[in-house]
């Protein structure tokens, strides 16, 4: 299944600045595995050491949170969009120190 993974701004530095990646995968987990296989620096930002999706990263299949579907095993179909939605806190002041 050809799916598109949307990469949020904070993680684009790990995907060669690409804002979306097309890949072939039957489940959301496979798509993320394929993505982090290609872009290895991305892995620790999405997964814990034991391979679970980090709790501050949300993954959506189209407009639905996969935690309320079948999590990583959620099946994809052609043309689906997977979104990675990390928590961002920025607001008023400079983020950086």
């Amino acid at each position: 299944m050809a799916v598109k993974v949307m990469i949020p701004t904070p993680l684009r530095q790990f995907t060669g600045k690409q804002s979306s990646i097309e890949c072939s995968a039957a489940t959301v987990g496979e798509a993320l595995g394929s993505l982090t296989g290609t872009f290895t620096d991305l892995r620790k930002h999405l997964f814990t050491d034991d391979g679970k999706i980090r709790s501050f990263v949300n993954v959506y299949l189209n407009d639905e949170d996969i935690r309320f579907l079948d999590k990583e095993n959620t099946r994809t179909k052609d043309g689906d969009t997977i979104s990675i939605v990390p928590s961002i806190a920025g607001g008023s002041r400079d983020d950086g120190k």
Partner: protein
Amino acid sequence: MAIPTDTLQQQEVKLSKDEIQRYSRHLIMPEVGMEGQLKLKRARVLTIGTGGLGAPLGLYLAAAGVGHLGLVDFDVVDSSNLQRQVTFTTADVGKPKSEAAKARLSALNPAIDIVSYETRLTSDNALDLFRDYDIIVDGTDNFPTRFLVNDACVLLGKPNVYGSIFRFEGQATVFGYPGGPCYRCLYPEPPPPGLVPSCAEGGVLGVLPGIVGSIQAMETIKLILGAGDPLVGRLLLFDALAMRFRELKLRRNPDCPMCGDHRTITKLIDYEEFCGIRGEEAPAMTDGIPEITATELKARQDRGDKLFILDVREPHEYQICNLNGKLIPLGELPRRVNELDSSVEMVVHCRSGKRSADAIHFLQTAGFKKLWNLKGGVLAWADEVDPRMPKY
């Protein structure tokens, strides 16, 4: 869909002749009308943060005639704020933000009641501050305060109009609405320090908070009026570069420790600790990391000592100013570590010393031993050695 508030119904208020003229473009719209304008006048809205998001928020809420505005901010206006915090003028630099914002909003609309709180929002004062307001608008810039605002809103049953930004991407939604999700339903836990985008990818396009803060102002006014469909159960994502809005579903998590069926959090906690932060500017790892000051580094260079300078900032930062070091951004270091020679003495630096500390920690685990962290980064170099170097 109007929010259940006491104050919206209780007070008898009227509009003066001047106010009728001022709000005439509202009054001639049936969706607002006299009834809606009086709701706005009775409403009490507390904005947390008067910066990038707080600027359009404050301006639009004051202009719209929200009768009671509270402004919480402990910070002072810095010249680097003016690129996006449009409430402030150059003359405000150095003044407390809450005071400067109050002065600006009072000038815009003298008929409304504005209270400034020049204080940091904490677990000790949040509930007392929030209690007097109908709606809380979150325009803060850090995870501990976002969790604090969320928890206090859920405990008090007040809606939390949420907006957040990063570089050129924004998020907005309304949490804490009766039956709707809260911030913890979306993000049960904060990211650990070090895994969040930090200064390496920091910065924000100045217009972006203007757009996201305006969305928060619109949602606040809709909640007050009870008009339209509030942004509840939906997370609005905005990508300014693509100029695209997307919407994702947000669901209340029945297992949420805050707003779920079996609440386990019943009071405010220590949010700095919860987020793994102790002291906002403390570097993540200073233990075992040898430091060199800018003055010492200059002295050793002047003596002719051969020191390899490694700059772990981003290329666009290097363009602003640099120490003629080799540039390997922190994020690329693991992949490019083979470009470095572990036999030479190395000074690692970034902007202020935090990223370079992380880089040294990594290099130590990779077997490097002759390492120094430039204390205070290029900012310290500009202060101590070269006053002509621009700071950013």
